[in-house]
């Protein structure tokens, strides 16, 4: 099983979620993170001081899928929906998951997804 972690721009969350749902992905977990990378942060101003905010708000999406095909489908859906073509669009990381358990039913692995 594979875990897909995508870092995207916050305002793309809704689009990405819809693309995933259309692609048949029915479960995901989202969190608010801050990114540091090539994208320049904006400047904030505070009474006689202007400073650059280096950490930029991003959204992290985590999806665990049962097969490599599903992983590819999900990656494609995310990449397409999250792309603006401007710096800071984000990255998708894929790793391996050893096992899964659905707490409610005690189902395991593929069945739990």
């Amino acid at each position, binding site marked *: 099983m594979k875990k897909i972690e995508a870092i995207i721009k916050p305002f793309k969350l809704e689009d990405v979620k819809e693309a995933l749902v259309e692609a048949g992905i029915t479960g995901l977990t989202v969190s608010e993170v801050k990114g540091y990378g090539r994208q320049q942060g904006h400047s*904030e*101003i*505070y*009474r*006689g*001081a*202007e*400073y650059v*905010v280096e950490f930029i708000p991003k959204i992290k999406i985590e999806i665990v899928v049962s097969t490599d095909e599903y992983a590819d489908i999900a990656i494609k859906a995310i990449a397409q929906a999250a792309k603006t073509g401007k710096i800071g669009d984000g990255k998708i990381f894929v790793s391996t998951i050893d096992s899964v358990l659905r707490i409610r039913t005690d189902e395991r692995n593929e069945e739990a997804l």
Partner: protein
Amino acid sequence: MKFKHIALATLLAPVALLAEEATLSSGDTAWMLVATALVMLMTPAGLALFYGGMTRSKNVLNTMGMSLIAFAVGTLVWVIAGYSIAFGEGDLIGTGKLFLSGIAADTLKGAIPELLFVAFQGTFAAIAVAIASGSMIERVKFSTFTIFSALWILAVYAPITHWAWGGGSTLNFGEMDFAGGTVVHINAGVAGFVVALMLGARKDYGKAAIKPFSPILTVLGAALLWFGWFGFNAGSEVAADGIAASAFLVTMVAGAVGAIGWLLAEWVVYKAPTLIGGASGVVAGLVAITPASGSAGAMGAIIIGLVGGVIGFIGVAKLKKLFKVDDSLDAFWVHGLVGIWGSLATAIFIASYAMKEDYNMISQLGSQAAAIVLTIVYSGLVTALVFYVSSLLTGGGRVDEETEQIGLDETTHGEKAINL
């Protein structure tokens, strides 16, 4: 309020005031009851939010707590001794009214009960020391500040008030200070600056970005300060009459153009008008008009307030960098520097109907300057002494490094600004 006595006769004199036997005016008393409540609100609500919103999230409560304790302790020492020092009989120092002795419910001060005058003036003492707290935040010990509040009101605020409004003529230079430009704002600004100097800068000052917790609080605080300032300025007439009305209108105008001045300056320099800037501009405009509020007209107020807003911005964004002093929330720049402008402007911008025939601007500017210098010198020296004593009594005036780094809300108060 000094100027009031000069100008009053030429204006609307409430009937009661000229009567042989003083009687209570229910209209004036009604207004002063409210004016006092308005000024009261400025400290534990207006200033607490204005300052709290500009503090980092880990110290918001501590900053607000300083305004609260300033009002609490200030009120207590005021009724015990402060009022006597400020408004008791005497040339250099007032005496005879400790514990408000001799003042009953039917004792009058002009056309209002003296007990009400005690309360009104007490709110001024409290806010003065609370303004100074802005220079000390994020590092001063809560205990030190508490003791400092009490001592400072007795040793610094009350004497200066006595000279300006309460007492004899030796240290009164005939300055015009209708509502406390020198007494409250320059005084508090200087005091804050001195303590900031003694405390030293915050560890992160000039290094890390110090993000204000929430401009929402700061804007709300400024709005409440403005609201209260109507009591501050128009209440300083101690009557509901034409001068109070004029003071009210110029307070409204100066706050408005103060905001415009600061925002324009920000827009020119940073291309971004900030909310904290707008809120600060309101306060700067109000500080500027305070000494002139009983004498300036609406058009004078436009100049005084607008320039006040711009000077405030220049002070905070430019001049401050010439000094190494971490005057954290700019009590000196917004209250001290702008207060000096306001005091000098008071002599320059006088409504035609408020100007005496033999008025001499140059000599009045001299009086203003003399009062400013006296305030800076006395407040500077005695504040240093008072803060030194307060530090001694509390084992040092500054929290330790770890406390500063973790934040005072958690370490001193065991609380958190917001639990989501």
